């Protein structure tokens, strides 16, 4: 076709991808800042606010979920370390474990929802419930996205036999640790304060 032969594929270097991910995380931060500020305004205006963590089982599940996510960040870190040394099997094991913990987090979260719904707190029953399901739900959607991204990263980084491509792992890792941190903030603001 054209006589000029050009580089039609942009080679995005690692630092560029890293910065792109930072902008994405910045946008997610702004989303949650807006949601949490809305939550604080509704809470300040409310005449009485019942903490959803008042029931001991709900609180325990919240604590368990926080611990699950913190462990998943640690297993992610281990997986990433093995990616540096290039052992594919270990990478798959540790990141697979991380993925599993993510799924367990979601299941525990659903269980928590079920318990609260059974106890009479639904999204429609009062403003506390609306805020609770909204915040945990939007966070859960992001965890689902992160699980999909991590599955992609595991396949992508170990697709060539004998080597591990570290970049997808590093990139998704930023998202994973960020959502972990975000959960801790949510946990404190919903269950503790």
């Amino acid at each position, binding site marked *: 076709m054209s006589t*000029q032969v050009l580089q039609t*594929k942009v080679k995005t270097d690692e630092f*560029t991808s890293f910065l792109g991910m930072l*902008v994405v995380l910045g946008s997610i931060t702004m989303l949650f800042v807006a949601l949490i500020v809305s939550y604080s305004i509704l809470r300040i205006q409310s005449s009485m606010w019942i903490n959803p963590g008042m029931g001991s089982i709900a609180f325990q599940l919240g604590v368990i979920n926080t611990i699950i996510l913190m462990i998943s960040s640690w297993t992610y870190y281990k997986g990433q370390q093995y990616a540096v040394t290039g052992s594919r099997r270990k990478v798959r094991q540790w990141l697979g474990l991380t993925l599993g913990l993510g799924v367990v987090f979601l299941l525990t979260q659903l269980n928590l929802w079920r318990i609260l719904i059974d106890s009479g707190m639904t*999204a429609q029953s009062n403003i506390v419930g609306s805020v609770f399901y909204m915040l945990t739900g939007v966070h859960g959607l992001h965890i689902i996205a992160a699980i999909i991204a991590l599955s992609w990263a595991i396949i992508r980084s170990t697709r060539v036999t004998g080597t591990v491509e570290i970049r997808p792992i590093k990139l998704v890792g930023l998202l994973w640790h960020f959502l972990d941190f975000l959960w801790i903030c949510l946990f404190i603001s919903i269950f503790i304060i």
Partner: protein
Amino acid sequence: MSEHHEQTFWTKYIFSTDHKVIAKQFLWLGLFFLAFGGFQALLIRWQLAYPDQPLPWWLLGTLFYEGGVITPDHYNALFTMHGTIMIFWAITPMLIGAFGNFVIPLQIGAPDMAFPKLNMISFWTMFLASVVLLASYLLPEGTAAGGWTSYPPLSAPVGGIAGEGQTLWTLALTLAGTSTLMGAVNYIITVVRMRAPGMTYFRMPLSVWGLWLTSILNAIFVPIIAAGLILLLLDRTIGTQFFVAGGLATVEGGDPLLYQHVFWIFGHPEVYILILPAWGIVSDLLSVFSRKPAFGARVTAICMCTIVVLSSIVWGHHMYTTGMSPLLGKAFMFLTLLISIPSSIFFLNWLGTLWRGNLHFDPPMLFAMAVLWVFGLGGLTGLYNATVTSDIYLHDTMFVVGHFHYTMAASVLFGGLAAIYFWFPKMFGKKMNPLLGKLHFWISFIPLNYVFFNMMVLGYAGQHRRLYDPNEYEFLAPINDLNISITFFAMVLGFSQLIFAYNFINSMINGEKAEANPWKANTLEWTLEGPIPHGNFATTPTVYNGPHEYSNPAVKDRDWIAQSEPMPT
């Protein structure tokens, strides 16, 4: 590292990752919705001038409405969708989607965007958003009708406007926001990481500055409206009551004012999101067609940055009448009025660029100068809206409508048209007919000013912005004639765009082949011979000069020097 891909029709034109193809996709999408939203404006104007008469055949009245009569419900839907479509589906795709995509990589000397696939997904998310938005017309109770701001309770499921149009509106807007965010990530990172060697920040053309700052605002503030839309969507779908209060609420604790805050924390930066690209493009074009360096280009860039910061802390001026504390109102008024300082500075810079320039009145220049006029008027009338005492009177009147059409609609429309006339030769490799371009300019510029200036007069006389039938109020009887004449000029303005449509399509098919640099401009895109292949530059250019090197005495044989040419010594 060179690869050559055999491209099929699908990978080349539909699911392309080439920023130039994506730019054209966005341009077509934007132009389609511009025509759609513009047509709705004509229907609104007809209703305001002749509220008792059915629409005439040439407005296709009987095609859309039974007997050609616009009912109050139809009318609500009309102005709601006119605003929504013009802002999010016409201006945003045209200036940010189309010219952001086309101009940024070419002007900074990059082979493509930093994340080409994300760029493609961004367009198709926008396309999906458009489908969802248009699908809302098919609902039995019609599309959204709560105003473009969709304040609860108008948009709320209880006590609001009937039908699920509002739900689809909310969903479509969320999708459009996602598309915008993907674009913003791309633009920000492309500018930060992909500039050619020698392309320092202050050597970037001001168009790129404008688009870049817009993207930063998008990345920060679109998530805020997303938060509001999520809450609204939950209210509408699963029955939460975040924005429902008072007698309508079944549970205590909701707050409709919260929506207004969230909306305007995004909404005011949105005004600058829309206009910053136009400012940047105009700053560059004035320099090209005055054959002079842009006066104080660095200061203009810094002023735009200042406005970006200020724009995020002035949202309260949309809410003076919500009963906010007078102290808060004063604070918002002070901050809002502060914006006039950087705006005035770069406005003077524009005049400084024109001053004693060698002006060439080609169509892009005419439209760029029109931006000076309409933005000047719009900016000045903004002072009345920013001041609490006068705003209390003017709030929600046609004055506001006239004001924001001058600043946001007319400035951005003219900026976008200037950009189309300017970059058309580079985008399509053909020339547009300049004579038709000039005709299009005059026949748009004069009616447009008549329409929007007199809207402010109407508002000052007390006409509310969302009235269905002004004849129902006796105190509006003296301005009835003005409503009719505005409608006449609006029709002229609307139908004169057919000249543009003809010129655009005809030039694309039958136009004369354009040379590589028809305007003798010095930025990097004009160094490329068309058609530009995927990957843009055969060798990455090195940049030696600023973006406005015109009439430099060091260059002997001509009055410009490309950014990638070393200055003769």
